[in-house]
């Protein structure tokens, strides 16, 4: 997340990370490992969720393990959740996919256009209208690999 932060900042996106560790643990993890990994201090607030109250609100708190699993929520300026992704602990997330989704939602909120499957920045979009219903196949073909 820290590595992709510059890109997110350019898109006017704030980051909050959350785990059930204490703020002191966050401090030490930042100092002793994370900052050495990426070459700078964590640029976003690292929130402490001891007891799992925040994780419970977002349904990512694993009561048996006492931890928040890897849940990622994209919240728009109105406070509406536009996307979520939840992974079990062993696999990390893909910041590029997160950036792609943010670009797509921001584009939609600006233009009303919708982004077909596999859309990347600069790719074809669609303008929903009565004429387009049933005719998407004329306008758009699935990308071939």
């Amino acid at each position, binding site marked *: *997340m820290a590595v992709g932060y510059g890109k*997110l900042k350019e*898109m*006017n*996106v*704030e*980051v*909050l*990370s*959350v*785990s*059930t*560790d204490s*703020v*002191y643990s*966050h*401090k*030490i*993890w*930042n100092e002793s*490992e994370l900052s050495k990994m990426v070459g700078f*201090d964590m640029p*976003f*607030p*690292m*929130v*402490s*969720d001891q007891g799992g*109250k*925040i*994780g419970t*609100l*977002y*349904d*990512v708190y694993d009561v048996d393990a006492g*931890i*928040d*699993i*890897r*849940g*990622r*929520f*994209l*919240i*728009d*300026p*109105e*406070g*509406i*959740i*536009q996307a*979520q992704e939840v992974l079990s*602990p*062993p*696999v*990390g*997330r893909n910041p590029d996919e*997160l950036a792609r989704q*943010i670009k797509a939602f*921001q584009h939609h909120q600006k233009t009303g256009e919708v982004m077909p499957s596999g859309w990347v920045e600069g790719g074809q979009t669609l303008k929903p209208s009565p004429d387009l219903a049933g005719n998407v196949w004329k306008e758009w073909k699935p990308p071939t690999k």
Partner: protein
Amino acid sequence: MLVTKQAPNFSGMAFHEGKIKKVSLEDYRGKWVVLCFYPGDFTFV
């Protein structure tokens, strides 16, 4: 399911730029926010 719904508000203590401070989600209204949960400090991915 939470997608399309109002994000549940919360506040909590956070470590940020060398300081410990209180953070509330509602303070971020007007901005896009990525809220990122993870299993624990010193985990590997």
